[in-house]
């Protein structure tokens, strides 16, 4: 594990980037920066160096977006529950319209749409970078939360209007299927693998799951459903809502869009830090093994760390003899694998 430190920086403080006398920053000399994942070509790309996660501007933007989102949500709730009038037919139940379509918009179109685009950009050779993989993962996780909110708010609205919390309606069923598909995506991300392998298969999974998004959208047109069709963005582009209700609805969309982008930025940074901490723990464990004499030290002729970097379940091979210089990569050579206790999280 990571050794305790006497001078622990504050949790929110950014790591220092001071220059050492040798002209190289401590960050560049740290085990994290020298880990195999940090030195992989994908991680070295400009995008993967993550302006979203590191730059002070991004951190300030995150704060400003967060404050704007909180204010926007507060105003939406105030207008939606107290200021706007009840509907002629639905009465007070119409107040759910300021919440339910907005969370559905974020989940379906923003989150899962962004995940599909990011996955596509990852798979495209010219734009391949771990940045897109992390962005897709962040978007999917936030999207799953909003998808759950969509299903819950829809069910609560359905009970007084349709008489049931749930029915196997086309819109509801396809939305539930979407949730299951993206839960599968999140499960796939937890399967131990090399980061690049994981990113590739998750990108394919996201594209596969995103096929359901247009099905959800057009389900009210393709099948006879209980769910109503588009009210604002209908084919005629003539919104059938007006006055204070329309403005509150619009504010709800803007506020929850801001909430989404705030969550996306924070979740992206978490993914970025997880990659760094994961490899840091791995290197610490390897050094412990090297100190025990199980693994040859770095710089010796034998491969120092034939491990699957970034995986949660990691083993270190202990070769009995040093392989010849032209031998294939160490991962392909079976050897006695010894699990490292403390690396598995």
């Amino acid at each position, binding site marked *: 594990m990571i050794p305790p430190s006497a001078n*622990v920086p504050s*949790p929110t403080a950014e790591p220092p980037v001071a220059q050492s006398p040798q002209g190289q920053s401590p960050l560049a000399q740290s085990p994290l920066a020298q880990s195999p994942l940090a030195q992989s070509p994908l991680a070295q790309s400009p995008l993967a160096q993550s302006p979203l996660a590191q730059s002070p501007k991004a951190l300030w933007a995150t704060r400003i977006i967060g404050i704007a989102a909180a204010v926007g949500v507060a105003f939406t*709730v105030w207008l939606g529950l107290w200021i706007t009038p009840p509907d002629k037919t639905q009465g007070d139940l119409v107040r759910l319209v300021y919440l339910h379509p907005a969370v559905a918009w974020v989940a379906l179109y923003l989150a899962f749409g962004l995940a599909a685009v990011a996955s596509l950009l990852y798979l495209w050779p010219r734009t391949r970078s771990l940045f897109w993989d992390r962005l897709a993962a962040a978007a999917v996780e936030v999207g799953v939360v909003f998808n759950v909110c969509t299903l819950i708010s829809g069910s*609560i609205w359905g009970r007084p209007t349709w008489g049931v919390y749930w029915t196997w309606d086309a819109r509801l069923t396809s939305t539930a299927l979407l949730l299951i598909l993206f839960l599968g995506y999140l499960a796939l991300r937890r399967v131990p693998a090399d980061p690049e392998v994981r990113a590739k298969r998750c990108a394919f999974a996201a594209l596969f799951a995103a096929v359901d998004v247009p099905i959800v959208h057009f389900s009210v047109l393709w099948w006879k459903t209980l769910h109503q069709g588009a009210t604002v963005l209908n084919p005629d582009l003539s919104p059938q809502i007006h006055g204070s209700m329309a403005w509150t609805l619009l504010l709800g969309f803007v506020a929850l869009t801001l909430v989404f982008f705030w969550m996306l930025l924070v979740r992206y940074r978490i993914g970025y830090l997880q990659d760094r901490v994961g490899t840091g723990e791995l290197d610490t464990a390897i050094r412990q093994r090297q100190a025990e004499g199980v693994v040859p030290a770095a710089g010796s002729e034998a491969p120092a760390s034939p491990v699957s970097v970034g995986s949660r379940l990691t083993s270190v091979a202990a070769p009995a003899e040093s392989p010849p210089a032209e031998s294939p990569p160490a991962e392909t050579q079976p050897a006695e694998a010894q699990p490292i206790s403390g690396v598995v999280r």
Partner: protein
Amino acid sequence: MNYVIAGYSIVLGLLFLYTVQLIWRRRRLNRLVALAQSDPAADQRAEDGP
């Protein structure tokens, strides 16, 4: 109106809980990275004193 209150409470409550969880995860990871990047030799000197 009870359904409306329930809908707002559950949805906003879920989003709030997820927000708290995100902040907690970010703080924990920031702390771990800061610990991992601290110089062990400097830490030892700090513990030993001048």
